[in-house]
């Protein structure tokens, strides 16, 4: 009797399993779509901070005493040479061009431009874009886009930065930034069929720290360690889409960033 039951159960189990042709997807968390938008947005903000940081580092090098220039160049631009031609600075081997005015960008009123002439996909997708950096006070700057060339057509931003020097001599980054402001963008990536329009407002100042990636400390991105940001997702192909996302950074460190995402009324913690 036991053997018959066993065979019956085996048959049921085999039959039941055989009817599942393919396992279902991993069940996403309720706020995972909102978290994805936040990840993309941090990349966009990081790209702009990286561009601003290159400009400020170049100015630090230009303003340095002659005997300190080599040391600063080795730290801030270990992979490139700095070349000047016809009023434009270029980091050799990169499509990055910096247009200074006649004043140091650390002087209030100074306005410099930086141009990423070609897109890059080295770490995450980085479009070609143009930025205007204006010094608004002591260690404070405003970053905005000044034309509709390149990716600027799909991106608007107006960010106020407060800088604090990175003291670690092994880091190639120049500043830690506290950011306030707003912007919007159409995502940039490998696909050309993007229809989302993502707007963000940094409601409570966010502090972005440089984090190195890869094998060398010369490459870095900016990641938020504190602050709040609210985002809105719209779709140019569907006017009914108006999704709100709220991000609250609870704690941040080079190894772990803990934050709350509130999306469609649900709050979940991520790290």
């Amino acid at each position, binding site marked *: 009797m036991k053997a018959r039951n066993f065979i019956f159960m085996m048959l049921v189990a085999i039959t039941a399993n055989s009817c599942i042709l393919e396992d279902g997807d991993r*069940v996403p968390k309720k706020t995972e779509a909102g978290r994805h938008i936040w990840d993309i947005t941090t990349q966009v903000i990081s790209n702009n901070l990286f561009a601003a940081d290159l400009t400020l580092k170049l100015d630090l090098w230009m303003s340095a005493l002659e005997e300190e220039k080599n040391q600063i160049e080795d730290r801030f631009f270990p992979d490139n040479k700095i070349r000047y031609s016809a009023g434009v600075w270029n980091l050799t081997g990169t499509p990055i061009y910096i247009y200074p005015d006649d004043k140091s960008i650390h002087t209030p009123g100074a306005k410099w431009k930086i141009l990423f002439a070609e897109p890059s996909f080295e770490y995450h997708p980085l479009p070609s874009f143009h930025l205007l950096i204006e010094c608004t006070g002591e260690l404070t700057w405003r970053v905005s886009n000044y034309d509709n060339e390149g990716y600027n057509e799909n991106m608007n931003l107006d960010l106020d930065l407060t800088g604090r020097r990175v003291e670690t001599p092994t880091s190639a980054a120049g500043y830690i930034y506290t950011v306030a402001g707003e912007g919007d963008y159409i995502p940039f990536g490998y696909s050309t069929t993007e229809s989302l329009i993502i707007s963000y407002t940094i409601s409570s100042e966010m502090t972005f720290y440089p984090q190195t990636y890869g094998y060398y400390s010369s490459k870095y991105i900016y990641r938020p360690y504190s602050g709040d940001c609210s985002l809105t997702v719209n779709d140019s192909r569907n006017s009914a889409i108006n999704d709100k996302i709220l991000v609250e950074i609870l704690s941040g460190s080079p190894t772990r960033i803990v934050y709350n995402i509130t999306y469609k009324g649900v709050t979940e913690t991520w790290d």
Partner: protein
Amino acid sequence: MFKKTLMLAIAVTIFAELANGQVRYWNSNRGKQLPEAEVRISHGLLPLTYDFEFLDFHWDLQTPSVTDQYYGLQTYRGNLYSTGALSMGHSIKVAKWLEMGATLSYVGSFRNIYASETNEIIDRETSRSFFFTPTLRFAWFNREWVRMYSSVGLGVGLMIKHPCNQSNGNSSEPYIEWGPSIQLTGFGISVGKRLFWFSEVQTIGTLGVFTMGVGLRVVPDKRRWQR
């Protein structure tokens, strides 16, 4: 391709019917007996249908857009279930070693689409396939209680697919695909006389890779027909 397959299936069916008619004619002339016939009901596991995954495979491995990823994360797909191949066949014995017939099969598969936000079902992906497969069965071991055989079948089928577009969470338009129905059986065995059990392995095709079922065999009573 479809026209050729259709013509081939029609030709096989006509051939089977002609052969059947010949046997009937032969029997009616001789007044001896009707041919042995059987009806089978079976269930086959993992039948081949027209929704092969590799047809949807993108060889360029293009990264999905942020838009598609965003909408994709708002839904998720449940397990894909299949009914297997539910088949019913009829055949007649035209020679001691040869049976001819045809099988009708149904294969259904479905999976639920859930909303990530509520885990509720918001849509269902389904496909329903129907196959008509004329079959030749070669019995190479013939005893009163046990028969072993191989078979080959060729016919036509159609699949009604109702997909769901995960990138925007909306249902896509249903569509129909036509194609051949092919079944090759390396080894089949039936056990029983009038009511028999059968199983087929070493098979591939629209009836499944492993088939099991029951059948009813009608063997005319010789004495009755000769009276």
